[in-house]
């Protein structure tokens, strides 16, 4: 019984997203948005559900826009843009990608990270979750690291076998450097170098355009 429950839980965590619309989501949207905005937003949500894309991030963007008192057009544009981002993320990450991976991937793509970079990340970590690498990548871009450098730093670290906690530590170190006034590009390079020095095993950096980093024994 316990194993069955565990399997049910695992299945729910691994599910790529709801395949159908969610009435409670629609009710929340109708309660918070004006009717003339709720209707087109719900259309986008239903369309995403029909494609098997996660709908919760779309509802969240609409509710966030309402709370921030954004204009109707801005909210609808944000929801549509995010839906397109989710679809692109699934193209890059594959049909087995989980909802959280698609959510993180959509954000990265909308910030200008190319689909190829997401696909490379998927190849670098084919069976593990990509949520943390994608969040770290997004954070670098948000803090001014050029997209190519940010992508290469996360890709090189992932190929080197860096686990999620190591990636998060690398993010903290790089953010600290940027806050201290270092240029984002140099900060990301140094952060990656520090991580690779501490990562056991041989880094698999083939294909990375980032200069190969030397590791100390």
């Amino acid at each position: 019984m316990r194993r069955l429950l565990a399997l049910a839980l695992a299945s729910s965590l691994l599910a790529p997203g709801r395949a159908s619309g969610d009435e409670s989501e629609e009710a929340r949207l109708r309660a918070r948005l004006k009717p003339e905005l709720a209707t087109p937003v719900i259309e986008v949500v239903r369309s995403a559900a029909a494609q098997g894309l996660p709908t919760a991030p779309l509802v969240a963007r609409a509710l966030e826009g309402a709370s921030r008192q954004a204009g109707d057009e801005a909210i609808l544009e944000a929801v549509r843009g995010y839906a397109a981002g989710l679809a692109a993320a699934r193209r890059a990450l594959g049909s087995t990608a989980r909802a959280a991976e698609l959510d993180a991937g959509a954000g990265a793509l909308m910030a200008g990270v190319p689909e190829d970079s997401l696909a490379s990340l998927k190849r670098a970590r084919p069976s593990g979750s990509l949520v943390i690498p994608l969040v770290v990548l997004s954070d670098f871009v948000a803090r001014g690291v050029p997209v190519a450098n940010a992508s290469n730093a996360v890709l090189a670290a992932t190929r080197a076998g860096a686990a999620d906690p190591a990636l998060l530590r690398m993010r903290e170190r790089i953010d600290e450097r940027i806050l201290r006034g270092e240029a984002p590009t140099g900060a990301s390079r140094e952060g990656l170098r520090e991580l690779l020095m501490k990562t056991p095993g041989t880094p698999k950096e083939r294909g990375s355009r980032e200069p190969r980093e030397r590791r100390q024994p």
Partner: protein
Amino acid sequence: MNGDDRWDDDARAAYQLPIEGEEQARDRAILRLRRESAKRRTGMGAWWVDPDGLRMRPALAAVCVLAVLVIGAWSGAGWMASRGVRAPRPSIATLPSGSTAVTFVFRAPGATRVSLVGDFNGWDPEATPLARATTGEIWIAQVPLEHGLHAYAFVIDGRDWAPDPSAPLAPVATFGRRNSLLVVGEDQAL
């Protein structure tokens, strides 16, 4: 996933089940800490570690202790409520399956009200207020969150939205300011 990994996951899940009464225990720890801090600030407290520091007749001492306990229990409950600290209450610690209690700590000098908004509460600024810590700048909230990715921000005095300075930033400022990102339940691999 092989059998070893599966067993590790099961054992880890069993280990990580919440301890009953943890919130109440945490509140008691914070109260004790506040007492310690008050002693440090006022220089009081040396008397009770020094057996010669305070002498009193036993009957009077007993009356005083009783009075302190009664007054302390009465005023302590009110004080805790006013501070946003929950009083101990009998309850079972429960978290929904696949969720984790996350502690948010935010520094907001001069604020009179801070709340948390995010994907998990419909971005409703009234839904999740933070409690002010003993001093005026630190605000704290503990929220059970489902495993997955969450975007969030803090709202100061109902007007100003700010990201969490210590968290990863969302890559796009969809409505003018960036949100923070939080991943729950992803970094627990052995």
